[in-house]
């Protein structure tokens, strides 16, 4: 029997190229696919970041003078779409999910390795298609929300390419979601109970449920929108009797959960990083699990808070206010639990830890403005202004992207067997944290005082504050330089990390770094206490 299995393994190893080349192959290894997601996502992040810089350059002056107005709208549409669908969603889910989940459940790969590879390989072509549409006939220019009738009346080829590419990315996301649910529920090592799983598994289970429930709604909506564009149907076209507000309901039914698809995995990753660097158990495991599931349920019934000025009836506004504000409760629990995890620990202050703490501070700020935005009367004034832009970036950049960087510092030794340089890492953190807050904090004031979002020109009284914001963006752009230098130097001549440089107890650290193809040389270890720090201090 064992001989048979070995033969099978040899066959797969023959098919799959080794070394650097395997990252360009249709590899079925979950670790290779995870890295493919991460590197591919980061390349798109650089593109999206370049577009963001172009926006901030345009906004240093109140006149529209850096690029033509329609190009500006294409740039902001591409920026939003790339950052959401090609950077944050694939990285917090696909990259870390693929790399870590099989380790955490004690499996040798994901449940459906081929589906997994397909899910990844849908991303590069759809991303490239989206970007090249700019050079052919102009990219989509109706914003990443693509509200009709604007999306129906702007140049059609760009909009159709946008729809097609988001559909493919949505498909990739659904494939990934199904795979994660199956892996977490069905591939657990015998003897490992659900309530013994590391928190990231719970976060990914919750996220995948959201992905599977809500992404098909977006797909359906975009297909109807494409019919309106190419076949002259009237689903959302008011000239033909369609209803534009229906589109908004359908769109936000996906796109609000999409925010949780971007932040729940980040919550899970922080829950893995903090206990290890604080040398303490994760505080309140059970309440963490319940609050993740609470966020999943509530996250599905809050979408209309994006539509408080769209003419929704008063009772609907009230319901969505209360539901939205209540998300603060399970979210708050998680933040209190993390601070309690730090309390009384022996904290190593390193880049991973600093980025995680930066995340807590930024996200608390974004969460507070979020509760304010949930209140209808508050929202009516600031809806569609820079206040919302600032809030959103505090959640997805100050939240998710900070966690992505924290995770890269934390798991780099696992993937490469080498440590990242701490001095460059701390410089990277300082530049990012200062730049980020300098860029986005002033935007709250801009929104409150009358600057709408998605504009290329604005009232000259806002010029100074916009320039401060652009200066912050410059810091953020510069901050990627030490990061990239650090990655390239450390991959080549980084300090040897050893198998478990952080002294961690979660299963991915209980194998060699980098891990072998099938994750463990022998049987997968049974880890029932992934956060068992401090219980026996001599045994490490």
């Amino acid at each position, binding site marked *: 029997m064992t001989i048979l299995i070995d033969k099978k393994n040899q066959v797969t190893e023959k098919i799959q190229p080794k070394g650097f080349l395997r990252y360009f192959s249709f590899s079925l290894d979950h670790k290779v696919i995870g890295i493919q997601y991460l590197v591919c996502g980061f390349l798109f992040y650089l593109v999206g970041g370049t577009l963001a810089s172009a926006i901030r350059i345009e906004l240093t002056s109140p006149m529209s003078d850096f690029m033509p107005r329609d190009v500006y709208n294409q740039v902001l549409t591409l920026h939003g779409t790339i950052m959401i669908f090609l950077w944050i969603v694939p990285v917090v889910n696909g990259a870390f999910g693929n790399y870590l989940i099989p380790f955490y459940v004690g499996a040798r790969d994901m449940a459906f390795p081929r589906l997994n590879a397909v899910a990844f390989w849908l991303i590069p072509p759809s991303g490239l298609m989206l970007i090249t549409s700019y050079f052919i006939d102009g990219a989509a220019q109706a914003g990443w929300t693509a509200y009709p009738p604007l999306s129906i009346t702007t140049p059609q080829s760009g909009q159709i390419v946008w729809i097609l590419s988001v559909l493919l990315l949505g498909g990739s996301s659904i494939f990934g979601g199904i795979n994660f649910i199956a892996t977490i529920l069905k591939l657990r090592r015998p003897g490992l109970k659900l309530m013994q799983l590391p928190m990231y598994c719970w976060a990914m289970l919750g996220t995948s449920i959201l992905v599977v429930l809500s992404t098909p709604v977006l797909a359906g909506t975009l297909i109807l929108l494409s019919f309106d564009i190419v076949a002259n149907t009237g689903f959302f076209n008011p000239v033909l009797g369609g209803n534009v507000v229906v589109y908004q309901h359908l769109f936000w039914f996906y796109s609000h959960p999409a925010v949780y698809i971007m932040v729940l995995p980040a919550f899970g990753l922080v829950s893995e990083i903090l206990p290890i660097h604080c040398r303490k158990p994760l505080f309140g495991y059970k309440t963490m699990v319940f609050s993740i599931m609470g966020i999943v349920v509530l996250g599905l019934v809050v979408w209309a808070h994006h539509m408080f000025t769209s003419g929704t009836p008063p009772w609907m506004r009230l319901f969505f206010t209360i539901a939205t504000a209540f998300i603060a409760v399970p979210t708050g629990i998680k933040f209190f639990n993390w601070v309690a995890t730090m309390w009384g620990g022996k904290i190593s202050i390193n880049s991973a830890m600093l980025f995680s703490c930066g995340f807590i501070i930024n996200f608390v700020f974004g969460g507070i403005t979020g509760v304010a935005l949930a209140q209808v009367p508050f929202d009516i004034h600031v809806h569609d202004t820079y206040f919302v832009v600032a809030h959103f970036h505090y959640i997805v950049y100050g939240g998710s992207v900070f966690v992505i960087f924290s995770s890269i510092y934390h798991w780099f030794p696992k993937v490469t067997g080498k440590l990242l340089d701490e001095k460059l890492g701390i410089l990277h953190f300082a530049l990012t944290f200062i730049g980020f807050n300098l860029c986005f904090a002033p935007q709250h004031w801009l929104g*409150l005082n009358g600057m709408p979002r998605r504009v290329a020109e604005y009232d000259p009284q806002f010029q100074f504050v916009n320039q401060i914001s652009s200066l912050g963006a410059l810091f953020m752009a510069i901050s990627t330089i030490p990061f990239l230098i650090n990655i390239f130097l450390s991959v080549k001549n980084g300090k040897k990390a050893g198998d478990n440089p952080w002294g961690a107890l979660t299963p991915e650290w209980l194998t060699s770094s980098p891990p072998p193809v099938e994750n463990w040389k022998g049987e997968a270890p049974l880890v029932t206490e992934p956060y068992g720090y401090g219980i026996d201090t001599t045994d490490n």
Partner: protein
Amino acid sequence: MLSKSSYLIFIISGVIGISFWIGFNVNLLPTEASINAPIYDELFKILFIIGLILFIGMSLLVVYSLFKFRKRKGQIGDGIALEGNLKLEIIWTVIPSIIVLVVGLYSYNIYDRMGGMNELNHDHSLMGNNSEKIWAGISQSNNNLGLIDTNIEVSAMQFAFLFNYPKGDFISGELHVPVNKEISVKMESKDVIHAFWIPEFRIKQDIIPGQPTVLNFTPTKVGKYPIICAELCGPYHGGMRASIIVEEQSDYEDWFNQNKKDELIA
């Protein structure tokens, strides 16, 4: 040497004190120029203070823990093996729930005072057409028919607002209104979705093609304020602005009489 709990009380009251001071002394909002504005600013102030307390408190906790519990040189071993504390966890579930609920009810009250909960008449006076369903924006009064002083029709198109005064049968590119009178605007879009936003009035309403919307407001301060389109509507979206000129009743009447169609004077 003070005891631990008196330090704690000192710090908590310090955070609350600073938050209140900032909340009352730092003004982040533009001029108040409508009945809605002071109501909005009251809500803003409360949310701002609560937000500051939570944000400063949490940030201090994170920075303090990071400093106080940092691993010293030569230290080995783990922290305390604390896996949870049911009492604490219940406290930080219940207290935020209460805060959220109170804030929600309070903002409901604010919204009601702004007129948001009033059922708008489906037959908007002057434009009265019973079959037409008009969607709610904000309405100051319960009964539009008797109390509205001035009715104006707004049409939005790429990239301009036009203001039609049905009483005078003329169209203007500027919105002139008398001060301290309730104004009702009925808005329709000719092409894509636009929005009607006056920051100094703290009101906004989308203008939706195929679906008229209504917004009622009462200006309280004479002056000229911007009307801004807040919904991405095409390349010149950033330039889609108009002005609202709030003037004394007599000035408004002069302007109105100058512009209205001649045959209506007789």
